[in-house]
């Protein structure tokens, strides 16, 4: 399967005439090949659309019609999917489709200036396709390269460490229409800086060791070890892993599925990237032993689109495991234990990290979180019992299967056993991956990564908690500061509002739009915050802002809406004076930006020169 190589390095750019007016029969043949490759399975719709997008730079109407007919699904489903995911489009994108990561860490590294420079050099506006169709330029949510930003994507492939000189070269390469395979390899280089390995990263491992240990000990006994390890899910919610596996194993409905959640969309998180890059064998082994325990013969790895660069090498690891008898039929010679893993790519949607949204996405639909109950353990993929676990959870399970539960439980705190991988970025000398026992105080971590002059730390990404420099004794633990791995450091030169606005905009951009409070509320939050930050808010607006935070938080359908107001709520709590100082003092100044309200008028009059702006008129 070559879905992953949607944008194959080897494809010379300028595909063929197909990008302009695809000839009927040519497109038919291409779509047919895509269908064959997907075995006509509608659940692989996303993979098919990724291939179509790569070939035709959008999802043409003809493709929609052909896919709908062949898959027996309504065309509305295909349109809905194409509109839901950031990297699928109904109108053609550039042959070089560039996205620049808009994470706060990228911004701190000068991303805005670089983006403007790139836009100017390429003569294309951000959010647009150049008239000749050669290039399109856009912002995108965090690409998971916060330790080596400013980062971006070209035709889906990660670009790291962007700077002015690299941009000069990139612009040249694009104008020359050089295929990506001719671009300097270092532009695509992804480092995995492991700064502090601990309990898990230091463990030696031989492929098959955890499975052999599991079979030797017995399945029930191994589940008992996972239980006594007290391992809790590393994807954020901290659900007890053994309980999830046991519940799934006793479900009567068959088949059972194992899903590895490699969506890693929380800005500032990149530890799953490192694990998939360097420890893939151990993750697949964790999935396989889970399969043995819950009785599953089919596993899925949901890989976020931004990690396309990992796709080929992950396929090779899978292939190697098949050849060594660690996947496929009668694994390790155990009669009747069959299990295989399929990699499916996402297409740009943070919400698809939420387990039930991910399942919807894996079924070829928009990633909209399901109504619960029932939980996916009981009614998951294809409405069958399903275990969804984070990459790091499977990684830990592999070593628990080898070393036993006690070994793991001795580390950390009673409620948060074992160690946690942190992705550290922002204002510190040594960004990268760190492994700590749970219970480690923030101040120790800051010392290790070389952060002085700390103004605050965002623990757990935008959906987590902002802590000020007065709270650095707090600890990484489910019972104190819970995090899936994101850890962003800010020094005293940073503006808190820049941070909060970036996070709030992120949630508005990523809301799936299913429920009213999150769909409408996240946009209202964004606008209300902007009003205050720009100095147009009165005291009543601050009240309104905090009320709105609570409405979104208390009434939303899923965890996204539940945490969308966290950046505002936690900084309102830690820095109330900041917000108060931002309010308009006099009672008679207008509560809105008069110039901005004239934007519509300016657009209608087709002018945007200085004279058309109020501030100029007043001077």
């Amino acid at each position, binding site marked *: 399967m070559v879905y992953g190589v949607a944008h194959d390095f080897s494809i010379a750019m300028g595909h063929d005439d197909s990008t302009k007016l695809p000839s009927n029969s040519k497109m038919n043949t291409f779509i047919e090949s895509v269908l064959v490759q997907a075995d006509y399975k509608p659940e692989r719709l996303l993979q098919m659309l990724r291939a179509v997008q790569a070939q035709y730079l959008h999802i043409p109407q003809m493709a929609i019609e052909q896919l709908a007919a062949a898959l027996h699904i309504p065309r509305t489903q295909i*349109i809905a999917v194409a509109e839901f995911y950031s990297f699928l489009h109904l109108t053609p994108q550039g042959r070089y489709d560039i996205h620049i990561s808009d994470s706060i860490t990228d911004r701190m590294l000068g991303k805005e200036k670089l983006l403007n420079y790139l836009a100017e050099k390429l003569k294309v506006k951000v959010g647009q396709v150049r008239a000749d169709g050669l290039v399109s330029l856009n912002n995108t949510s965090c690409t998971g390269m916060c330790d080596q930003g400013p980062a971006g994507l070209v035709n889906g492939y990660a670009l790291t460490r962007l700077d002015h000189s690299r941009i000069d070269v990139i612009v040249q390469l694009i104008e020359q229409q050089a295929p990506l395979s001719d671009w300097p390899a270092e532009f695509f280089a992804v480092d995995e800086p492991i700064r502090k390995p601990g309990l898990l990263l230091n463990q030696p491992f031989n492929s098959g060791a955890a499975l052999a240990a599991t079979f030797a000990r017995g399945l029930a006994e191994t589940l008992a070890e996972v239980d006594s390890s007290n391992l809790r899910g590393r994807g954020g919610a901290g659900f007890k892993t053994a309980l999830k596996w046991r519940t799934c194993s006793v479900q009567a409905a068959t088949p059972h599925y194992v899903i590895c959640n490699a969506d890693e969309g929380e800005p500032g998180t990149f530890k799953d990237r490192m694990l998939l890059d360097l420890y893939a064998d151990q993750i697949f082994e964790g999935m396989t032993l889970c399969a043995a325990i819950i009785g599953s013969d089919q596993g899925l790895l949901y890989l976020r689109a931004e990690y396309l660069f990992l796709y080929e090498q992950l396929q090779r690891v899978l292939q190697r495991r098949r050849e060594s008898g660690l996947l496929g039929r009668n694994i390790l010679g155990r009669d009747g234990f069959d299990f295989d893993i399929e990699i499916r790519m996402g297409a740009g949607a943070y919400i698809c990290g939420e387990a039930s949204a991910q399942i919807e996405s894996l079924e070829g639909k928009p990633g909209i979180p399901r109504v619960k109950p029932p939980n996916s353990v009981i009614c998951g993929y294809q409405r069958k019992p399903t275990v969804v676990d984070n990459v790091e959870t499977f990684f830990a399970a592999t070593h628990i299967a080898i070393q036993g539960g006690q070994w793991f439980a001795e580390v950390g705190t009673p409620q948060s056993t074992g160690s946690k991988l942190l992705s550290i970025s922002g204002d510190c000398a040594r960004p990268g991956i760190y492994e700590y026992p749970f219970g480690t105080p923030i101040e120790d971590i800051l010392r290790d990564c070389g952060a002085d002059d700390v103004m605050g730390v965002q623990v757990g990404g935008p959906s987590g908690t902002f802590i000020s420099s007065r709270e650095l004794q707090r600890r990484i633990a489910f019972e104190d500061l819970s995090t899936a791995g994101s850890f962003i450091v800010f020094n005293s030169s940073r503006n808190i509002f820049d941070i909060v606005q970036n996070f709030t905009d992120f949630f508005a951009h990523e809301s799936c*739009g299913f429920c*009213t409070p999150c769909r409408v509320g996240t946009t209202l939050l964004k606008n209300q915050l902007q009003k205050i930050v720009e100095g147009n808010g009165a005291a009543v607006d601050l009240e309104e802002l905090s009320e709105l935070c609570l409405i979104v938080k208390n009434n939303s359908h899923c965890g996204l809406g539940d945490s969308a107001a966290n950046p505002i709520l936690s900084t309102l709590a830690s820095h109330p004076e900041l917000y108060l100082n931002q309010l308009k003092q006099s009672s008679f100044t207008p509560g809105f930006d008069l110039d901005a309200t004239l934007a519509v008028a300016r657009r209608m009059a087709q002018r945007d020169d200085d004279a058309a702006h109020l501030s100029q008129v007043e001077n």
Partner: protein
Amino acid sequence: MSGTLCIDGIAVPFSDGQTIIEAARTAGVYIPYLCHRPGYAPYGSCKLCTVKVNGRTNTACTLPAADGQTVISNSPDLQHDRQRITQMLFVEGNHFCPSCEKSGNCQLQAVAYHQNMLDNHYPHFYAQRELDASHPDILIDHDRCIFCNLCVRASKEKDGKEVFGIAGRGIHKRLIVNSPTGKLKDSDISVDDEAAHVCPTGAILVKRSAYLAPIGERIYDHHPISEVACERAVLEAGAATGYPSCDQTKLPQNGGPDSHYAATMPPAPDIKHGR
């Protein structure tokens, strides 16, 4: 499973498979809703029916009723949030009730009245949405769509077609039509389809029927939505009179079973005629 749950101090019996909202409705206890419709698969998107069940927030239209549940629906906090959520729907789309054909028969409008909503509270979004008047008998005014998904479910589950879908992400949600052109006229909808009549707002309208009932003689002109919703359920179930309170502090109900509305209800709930 059947049994009794307690909603705002009222003991409410339920039967197998009922959600909280349906158990409540049948017992004459109104919990506001928009994306729910009796006889339809639960969807849970509008969040109007948000209640506290044993202290935890949940949607009454999706959560199965269970014996012994304690449900709070009419607390000041929940009512306040409900009003705000309704206001969000009003600013998201474009709802000019005084000139809308659906006025008086519109559930969104009626729910707003029920919540004593006096203004939009939030800044208006001024969404730009197109009208689809292509079909000879049916009109889509996208300005009034609240993405309740009822037309999608109606077409699929009741009409055995798939005329509608909801596309887009976040604030860019939009209702789409399953036809080669995207226009309603090229879809296989028929004016007799349930999907043509199910819309709780004025987003999908049957042409030439808007003023068959003049303003002032429409369903919510005379009866609050709390009554209409519950009376209909009581009629459907052929159901009985009062339910005992489950504690001393019996709270006031919205339109109880003793209301006079039952007498004027049409014999069977028929969505194809105006509501």
